Structure formats: C-alpha cells, structure tokens
C-alpha cells in the first residue's frame, strides 16, 4: 500500500517561518510551502540539509505498519513489538532520533523493559562527553558568538558541511550588540579549508587529521606560555602555532569551534581535553570559550531528557530495575557487534539513519523499526511502524547545539501517522497489561 504521507486532508499553504529540525542549529526562519498532495518544500532561507530533509519526508511510502513483512494494524504491530520486548533478555533502544516527547516515551519504555539506551551518533558525542565528565568545560552559546566573538578558531571542520548556515546566521551576520563588525572578526581554520562564506579575514593552517592531537597539545602548551623544542607538528611550523596562540591571547572574546563528528580518530576525547586545557589557560587573562557543535539527529535532545529524568546520560541501561551508566559496556555498536542484545528497537524520525553495522556470523537480533515512510531498513524489520516526523507532521521540542535553547517545532502539514511517542507509549501500555 503506497500512499502520500497518509490520507489526512491537506491544503496547500505557505508558512513564512518555521523551525527546521534537520541540523543542530534549528534555524527558526525557514519558509516552506505545503502542497495539497502533502509534500513540504523549502521556499526561502533553506540550506541543502533543510531542502533534503523536508523533501525526504515528502516522498511516498508505506502508510501502514508491517509485521513480518505484511501490512498490519497499529494494534497488531504494537502487540508484536511488545511480545518481542517481553521475551528479550536485553533489548537495545537505539537510533533515538526523536523529539522530547518521543525520548520521554523511550526512557519510560527502556525502564519498563530493562533496555539499554544509546543514540545513533553517540560515538561522536562521547568525544565531548568523556572530556566533560573528566574536567568540565568552558563554553558559550550562539547569540554570544554572533555578538561578541572577535576570533574564531575552527578545529578540524569546515563547519558548513554539517551546519550550513553557521556563518550566515551566527558567525558573520550584519549587526551586533557591541559594534563588532565583519572586518574586526578573524577566523582561523585549523585542518579543514575555509568555506567561501567564512568571514573576510580567514586564515588556514592546513594539517593532517592524524596530526591533530599533537597540534592541539602543542597549542595548549603554547597558550600557557611554554617553550617547545620541536620545530613543527606534522607539516605545521611551531612558529605558526605560536602566532596563533598569541592572537588567541590578544582576542577580547575568542571561541574555539569544533564538531565532534569531524574529530574522527581514536581517543579524540584527549584532543577535546587539550582544547579544554587551552581554554582554561586563556581565561586567566581574557575570555575564550568553546563552541562544540552538535545536536543533529536530536542527539543532545536524547541526552538531555535521559539526564533530567534519570540523572544519567546515554549509554545507560535499565536491567535489574535500576539505571546503570557505562560508556563502554552500553555502546550500541559494541553491544550489536558482540550480540549482547537480543532485540533492537531503532528510532529514526528525522532522516533515514542507517542501522549500525552488524556482523554476518550470527543471525541479527529481531528489529522493531520506528521510522519515516522510506526507511531503508523497513523490509528487514520484524515490526515496522511508519511514524510522523517532528517539525513536519507534528509539533514538538528539540535541543539546539548549545544545549541552552530548546526550540519549539510546529507541524507543516496534517498527518495520520502516529508520532514516535504515541507508538512507544502504546507498546509500554501493552507491556503493562500482562
């Protein structure tokens, strides 16, 4: 059964501003147009991620749940999912790309059935989180960057591939509170090449990814005024780094920007610790803060909800009727690779997150999938719920990259698909019945 999002009645209309849920910036000024057929298209102030995101949610797809490959009613699918979870020793609720309401329901369900919770992109997030839990952090938020930052040191990322409107909206817009203008802002890219819309005075220190940990260690030492005997780190002359450290000390309100997803090397948490050390030293004399970019696929939303309800971050398990946090043991990839879980419930309501890689040695665990209409994994799922998408089909809340602003999403169109929260609550209710 193929249907446009579903059979809810649509009117074509223009929405002048709505919040875009497809990256951690959660821009609230995107204009979209909904068609009578139920498609949603970006009409102004979009970026490639928002255009692709809304388009993906507009494509036709299965309208009804499936159990073992055949169409089923929502009730039948809920019963089938509950049965799988009831029989499981250790379920994993993964993906977790959903809004606050969906995550609230996921935490309740995990507690109810003794599951582990981990997010699809946790590997990146934990590069920051482990450093944070070890030493803390000095950070700032987007409006402070917009109005105050006179020096941006960008580590290992071009920013715009993952956060397309960062420079346009945050780091180089016209008009600031304290008279800071574009010509006074300086941007130094360490690693990735500056994108075309970076602020006027952008420098580039090219560096191999493998040299990044050493380079950040050297920068921390130089910021503290240490003398280094080495002449270069990888291909970068020490003199170049000393100049950078000097300009960082001279900045009035500097920021170090990074995206943990781009620090894709072993033990990147140590590199993040070096960034934190640099910031601690710089703040003895001036103001300098970190801007760790994230929040895409609702990773920070998932973490925030679990933290506030339970007191622990992701990679928490609820076996034995008590929460236990273990960033190594409850890593979803490890649990799947080692077959330590026996049911996978995967939530992907924003984009189409690929399932974690699995070994072929043993049969994959049963899969319960809550995803959009075109989920690649739908045909492999034992139980599949086509669910609504927050910010497209229904309102909701997502946490922005800086963990301060929670953005309210609104529905761009009518939808008959249930939300992730509704499905999870129904499964939870079914589990409570017997």
């Amino acid at each position: 059964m193929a249907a446009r999002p579903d059979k809810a009645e649509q009117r074509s209309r223009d929405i002048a501003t709505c919040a875009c849920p497809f990256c951690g910036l959660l821009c609230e000024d995107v204009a979209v147009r909904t068609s009578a057929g139920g498609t949603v298209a970006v009409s102004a102030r979009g970026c490639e991620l928002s255009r692709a995101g809304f388009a993906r949610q507009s494509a036709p797809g299965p309208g009804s749940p499936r159990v073992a490959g055949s169409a089923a009613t929502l009730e039948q699918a809920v019963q089938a999912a509950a049965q799988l979870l009831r029989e499981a020793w250790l379920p994993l609720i993964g993906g977790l790309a959903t809004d606050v309401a969906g995550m609230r329901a996921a935490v309740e369900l995990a507690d109810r059935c003794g599951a582990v919770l981990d997010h699809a992109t946790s590997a990146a997030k934990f590069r920051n989180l482990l450093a944070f839990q070890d030493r803390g952090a000095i950070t700032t938020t987007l409006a402070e960057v917009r109005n105050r930052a006179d020096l941006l040191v960008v580590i290992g990322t071009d920013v715009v591939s993952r956060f397309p409107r960062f420079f346009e909206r945050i780091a180089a817009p016209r008009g600031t509170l304290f008279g800071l203008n574009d010509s006074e802002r300086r941007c130094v890219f360490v690693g990735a090449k500056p994108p075309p819309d970076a602020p006027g005075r952008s420098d580039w220190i090219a560096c191999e990814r493998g040299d990044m940990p050493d380079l950040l260690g050297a920068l921390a030492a130089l910021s503290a005024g240490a003398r280094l005997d080495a002449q270069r780190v990888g291909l970068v002359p020490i003199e170049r780094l000393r100049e950078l450290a000097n300009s960082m000390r001279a900045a009035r309100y500097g920021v170090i920007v990074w995206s943990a997803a781009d620090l894709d090397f072993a033990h990147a948490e140590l590199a993040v610790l070096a960034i934190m050390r640099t910031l601690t030293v710089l703040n003895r004399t001036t103001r300098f803060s970190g801007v760790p970019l994230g929040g895409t696929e609702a990773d920070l939303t998932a973490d925030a909800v679990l933290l506030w309800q339970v007191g622990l971050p992701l990679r928490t398990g609820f076996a034995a009727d008590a929460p236990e946090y273990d960033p190594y043991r409850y890593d979803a990839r490890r649990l799947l690779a080692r077959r330590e879980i026996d049911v996978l419930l995967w939530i992907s309501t924003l984009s189409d997150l690929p399932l974690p890689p699995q070994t072929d040695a043993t049969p994959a665990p049963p899969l319960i999938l809550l995803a959009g209409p075109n989920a690649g994994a739908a045909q492999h799922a034992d139980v599949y719920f086509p669910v609504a998408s927050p910010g497209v089909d229904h309102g909701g809340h997502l946490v922005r990259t800086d963990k301060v602003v929670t953005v309210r999403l609104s529905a761009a169109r009518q939808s008959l698909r249930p939300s992730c929260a509704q499905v999870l609550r129904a499964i939870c209710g079914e589990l409570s019945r017997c």
Partner: protein
Amino acid sequence: MLMCLTGGRVIDPAHGIDGQVRDVYVRDGRIIEAPPDAPEAQTIDVTGRIVMAGAIDLHTHIGGGKVNLARLLMPEDHRKSVCERTALTRSSCGHAAPGTLACGYRYAEMGYTACFEPAMLPTNARQTHLELGDTPIVDKGCYALLGSDDFFLRMLAAGESQARINDYVGWILDCTQAIAIKVVNPGGISAFKFNQRRLDIDEPHVHYRVTPRQVLRALTSAVHELKVPHALHVHGCNLGVPGNADTTLATIGAAEGLPIHLTHVQFHSYGTEGDRKFSSAAARVAEAINANPNVSADVGQIMFGQTVTASGDNMMQFRNAELGSPRKAVIMDIECDAGCGVVPFRYRDQSFVNALQWAIGLEMFLSVSDPWRIFLTTDHPNGAPFTSYPHLIRLLTDRAFRNDMFEKIDPEARAHSTLASLTREYSLYEIAIMTRAGPARTLGLADRGHLGAGAAADIVVYRDEDDRERMFASPEYVFKDGELIVRDGRLVRVTDGASVHAVKPDYDRAIEAKVADYFERYQTSSAAGFRISADELHECGSKLIVHSCRGAAP
C-alpha cells in the same frame, strides 16, 4: 468523597493555631469547614500526631540547563545513590543533583508539596518547564533571572523610564510562566563577558557604565510596581568573598525601603577578622534584617559532605573552580541573557572555612528574630542536597544536639563562632512558619501553606518524636490535593498533573514590538518562539495556576 483527619494537634501559623486538637475536613482536594450535619466521612485517626500543611521550598535548584550540567558532571556521585524501579515508581538516581523523578519522589516522601526553581534563565525557560513537567507529585514555580541580560542593561544604560522597564519585566514574567524575578550578581554576569572579574555594588559595568546598585533599584521598583507578591529575589555581588557582609548591608540600602529578599544569605555574611581573614558576620547581617522589615532572607545552610554547586554567577564560580572537589567545573556564557557555573564541592567539617560556613548559617537562623522573614533552605544543591532538611531541623530545634555537632567541627572555626552561646531552639510552630506559612505568604500562594477552608488539601501528619530528624524525614501521612501519597515516609501513590504557579502582572504589550525588533537584529532564536503558552506548559507536563498580582496575601 469527604475525608476527616481526626484528633490531631494542628499547627497552622497562618491562622495562629499552635497545637490545638482539631479535625481537618477534606473534600474534592480542598480543605473545607467542618460540615454542620455529621455526614459519612472516611475518618483517619491521627490522635496525638502533629498536623501541618504541606511544606514549601522557596529556593531549590531542581530544573533547567545548569542542573542538567550538574547531573552530567557527577556520575561518580550518582552511582552511589540509585533509586530503583518499583511497581509504583520509575528508576532514577542522584544524590546532589538527582534526576527529576527521584527529586519529586524524595520531596514528597519528606512532606514537601511545592518547590520553587529560583534561577530560570529566560532563554532556557522551555527546558526548565520540560524538566519541571517531569518532576512528579510536587507543585512547582520558577523565578525568571534578569539583570545581566543585554536587553535590560541597554534599557538601563539608555536611561529608559521605569515604566518601560516594568513592561519588560512584566513581559518576561508572562512569557516564561514565572512567579517572581531573581537577580544574580547584578550586572556582573554580563560584566564577566567583558572580562571584568569583580563587580562591587557601586562599581560601573565596563561597557554599560551602570552599577549593580542601579540594577537593583530598577528591578526592586519594577517588581514592586507590578505588584508581584514576592519581592525581588537577590543573589548579591561578591558571593563567597570574605568581607562581603558589607556588600550585603549595602544591598539592603540599595532597596531604599522597598521589599527585597536576600537569598542564601549565609554565603553573603562573611567578615575578614582573625588570622585567616575569614570570619562570621552573621550577627551584623541578622541585626540589619531584624531592623529592616522590608527585608526577608533564606539561609542556604551548608552541610558536610559531597555536593555540587550550580549558579548563574559564573563570574564568582570561575574563581571558585580551583576550590572544587572533584576538580572539574563548567563555566558558561549564555545567549546575551546570563551565564552559569557548575562546580562540585565537598564541604569538610575539619576545614576551617567549611566549618565556619556551617556555623554562620546556623547563627543566622538563630539570630533573625522574625520567622516570617527567614526561610529554611540549603540552596539545594549548593549548600547541601535538600534531603538534609530533617537534619537541619533537628539542629535548629534541639540545642543539645546542635552543641554535640558543634564539638565535632574544626576547633579553630569553633573558636571563631558564637554558636554555642546561642540558646534559642526553634519551636514546631516556628518551623511551620519557615517551611509552610512563610513561603506561601511571600510568594502570594493564597491557597497553600495553611489548613484553612479553601486551601489545597496538601497535608502532612507527623509522629511527635523527640528525634526531630526522624520525625521530619518520615512523615506518617502525606496528602497532595487530598490524595494520600505517602505512608510512613514511603510513597504509596504517584499523582499526575502537578501544577506550575505563576503570576500575570499588567504591562503594556507595546514592549513586544521592541523585543521582537531586538531579537531580529541581535538574537539567534525568534521572539515568537520565546513565549510559552499555557497549552505548551501543559505539553511540558504541568497545569498552570495563576496567582493574583495585588500584593502579598494578608
């Protein structure tokens, strides 16, 4: 359904009732007058027991961004304090910064039925309300934090009229669903972003050229003129700095006779006497509070052990970071709005400074004469987790116990404190004022904190035990809105639909256009998205109760 608690000794200071035996009737979640004809009622015999209204904590950091950062920072502390899933309750954990579930459960088990989050950043209001919506059983409310936000400081620096400032304050209260206004290190959180490391009360902000005294004056006036029941809630300059008692006295002066509430005043009552240049100035500050009826205070008592401090005052928390244990800290500038600083602390009874802080808090409690103007808090979790309240009540009500504890602290601190000479013991009536009637009155909660007809049936029944710590840790019965939720200190029912209390002062909505223009020019989020409606609050998990803005309840 009619219920009657019969034979109990009622302590209800709002009505001057001190231990008289009275029956308390409840119908549909409310306390009612004794019905004239003795109808069929479910009767609970509480003969010999003490009956009070549900307790109210008017200053406890239980939700919002900085609390979530504190939770994230403390996994080693949380591991030791697990709240297991039961047939009734869900899993949660945390000692110093518990999850919202554990927080609601534990407050209810101690007989608390309402808790007020005192530092909601307007830009973080939505998350705060989402967290409070997930805090079960107890009612909540929030104080919106102003005074270092650039919109306000620009108005003040531009010499805008008090009336326009009032409009902005009214708009903030309305949009963020708050019940009061708090200021933290007035102007100082902003000054820190300009690399100012201290800001004394008459020192100008390096960019705006306004002083904390001007900030205090504008905000005390706004709160007063908008007729918000609770006075401006003030976390003053120089938190934790030896000699800051002078600043505290100057802060009282800055109010110029208008109502002002000094929060966690223990942290602001330090002198500079002695070899260590750190001494108690509790007597001086208490004397000023006693002499100025426009002033109220909560104490922010510290207790020995591990906790985590979470404050909007990142200027001072940055200085405190090196004193932290375990040694880690989060310092954050926030959204041209405010900031936060999170630093774990382990207060030790053999540390001179910590032991003296402990004594200063108790001296303060015992030296402020009017229990209607002093409130029982540990500034959870900054002085200690709220679960230490029963122990604190024993320290206040039992002089022999207090002196035993005093004997155990650092001897040098003992020599610097007058605590042993203070003979006062708080009565249960005074405890009921500090923890029920007083907070309800100052916040303008007309139907809470008392047991008169029309009040919400939030009721606690205690065994009258000599050991007040045991008594207050484990009430025999707790009722929330008339439903039995706790029996012998254990939850027996988890109720839904707790409320958020807020005020809606009158203000000129013309301010919205100015704010929208400012957001458009300088902010990175939208002004339209800033407002939290009653419907959205419901989505967050709470029912909205609006209280009158015609001044404090009588």
